[in-house]
């Protein structure tokens, strides 16, 4: 009885809980304030899209969750435990493909499974089927240098999807280098697989259309320093119709907000409003 209670509790706890995270990078002239007071919770199984202008700290936040960057201050909890380092419980797609040049496409996708000592036959089967899904079945035995840029990105996505025990997928603009038609196909595959076996996805993108199509919730970040802007809940049922009025209304709302948040005078207005309160 108690154990069931525990399980239920952990189902309700957010998978990620970030509290007052600040991060500074050492730049050429002093320190760059990449993230400022970022607090946020990601509920289990949520598909969260993060958008925001270039340089607002989206990749930095993703790397902190991946365990690759230690925040300058604040805490980030993964399943209520501090993140001590990277690991295969989180699948990651970097902004650049970061493939291993010395492994074939298939071997790249198998990498995570091989490191976890999953039996060879099972590894191969899983990697092959995922490569088929992303449309790379015919180039499985080529080396990365033999692929086009977009194909490399798809391999990177497949490598992350292949991880069997990753409850959390971290994706940094995974489809931005892929042509519009293929991108839509991949978005559909992503949503389909996500609907089949729901996991938490943190998805960074520049593409507002993509965010509205994919997300349960959209986080708009604001630049200099990078911080939480505002959230948009997306309640449309899937699959979403890109031509519906609702879809386009949300898109223009977010676009407008993004323009506003990129405008530095907004900061001033905010500050004035805060003082007036």
């Amino acid at each position, binding site marked *: 009885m108690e154990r069931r209670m525990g399980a239920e509790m952990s189902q309700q706890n957010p998978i990620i809980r970030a509290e007052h995270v600040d991060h500074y990078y050492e730049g050429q002239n002093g320190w760059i304030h990449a993230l400022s007071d970022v607090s946020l919770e990601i509920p289990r199984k949520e598909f969260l899209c993060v958008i925001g202008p270039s340089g607002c700290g989206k990749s930095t936040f993703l790397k902190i969750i*991946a*365990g*690759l960057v230690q925040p300058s201050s604040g805490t980030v909890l993964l399943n209520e435990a501090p993140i001590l*380092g*990277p*690991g*295969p419980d*989180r699948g*990651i797609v*970097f902004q*650049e493909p*970061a*493939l*291993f*040049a*010395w492994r074939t496409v298939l071997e790249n996708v198998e*990498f*995570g499974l*091989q*490191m*976890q000592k999953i039996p060879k036959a099972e590894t191969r089967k899983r990697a092959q089927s995922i490569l088929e899904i992303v449309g790379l079945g015919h180039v499985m035995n080529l*080396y990365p*240098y033999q692929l086009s840029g977009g194909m490399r990105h798809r391999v990177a996505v497949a*490598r992350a999807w292949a*991880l069997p025990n990753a409850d959390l997928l971290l994706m940094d603009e995974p489809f931005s280098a892929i042509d519009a038609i293929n991108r839509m196909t991949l978005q559909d595959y992503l949503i389909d697989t996500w609907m089949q076996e729901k996991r938490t996805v943190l998805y960074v993108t520049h593409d507002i259309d993509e965010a509205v199509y994919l997300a349960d919730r959209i986080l708009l970040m604001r630049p200099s320093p990078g911080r939480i802007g505002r959230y948009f809940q997306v309640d449309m049922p899937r699959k979403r119709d890109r031509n519906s009025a609702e879809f386009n209304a949300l898109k223009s709302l977010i676009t407008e907000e993004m323009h506003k948040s990129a405008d530095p005078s907004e900061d001033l207005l905010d500050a004035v409003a805060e003082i007036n309160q």
Partner: protein
Amino acid sequence: MTTQDAPYLPVRSAIPKTIAIKGARSAEDFADYEKTKKRKLMIRKLTRGTIGLVGLLVVWHLMSVAYDLQLILPTPWAVLRRVGGMLMMDNTRWLYGPNVYTHLAVSFQRAMIGFGLAAVIAIPLGLLIGRVTSMREFIQPIITAFYQVPGIAWIPLAILWFGLSDKAVIFVVFMTAFFPLYYSTEAGARQINPILIDAGSCFGAKGFGMFYYVVLPATVPHITTGMRIALGGAWRMIVAGEMLASSQGIGYMLMEARFHFRAVDLMTAMILISIIGYLTELLIVRLIEKRTVEKWEIKTN
């Protein structure tokens, strides 16, 4: 030519000739075409190389004959005949103990043992020190201190420790081959694109797995560069070592030839050293490169 035409000219001339394959439309046609092109390029390379070498031989011959220097600078023909003679073991004026193959084999074996030991120690150590800061901070000063001592300076101590023997020569070869291997491997491992290490650790590679599956392959281009330098150094040192600390091997042969004032035998031995050195490089380094760097198309940055 009108001024309107002018801007198009550079574009037209920039089109490479290779595009114009008459009637070639299928992949097979193109493969054929590529094969012929590769063969032509190969032949051209060989011809040019040969012309260079023959030119050198001609200059050499002229100098030898024109200044009447046969005693200290024998003609290329005399040397080539001697190379042939030695390899055929014809025994004319043979003053060096066992046959030439024995000397070559002894030298080759020593060089390979010294080089092999250096590789087995320097490569893992370089990978480790390139990646693990604490290791680097402990060990780098020691290695830097030893690096300052040229390999040849170890010969007297080696003779003291090991006597006039195989071991002494192998030891100095080891000391010479170690540093280039170590330093290239270390630099390569240190300079790996951090995102590859990040990718490795995010996908669960750690400890030995990280070194074997990520760090080692990513460092291979540097390792082969180091091997090339180390092999060259090993051959140089084998000769120096054998001149001073051995009664066998190609270095010993060189020294003996000088005592007997046999310039033709000196130069013959030198040519043999060059050939063997070239062949070992071909066999070891080129083979590794073919199966790694060239297959993956990665280069040192």
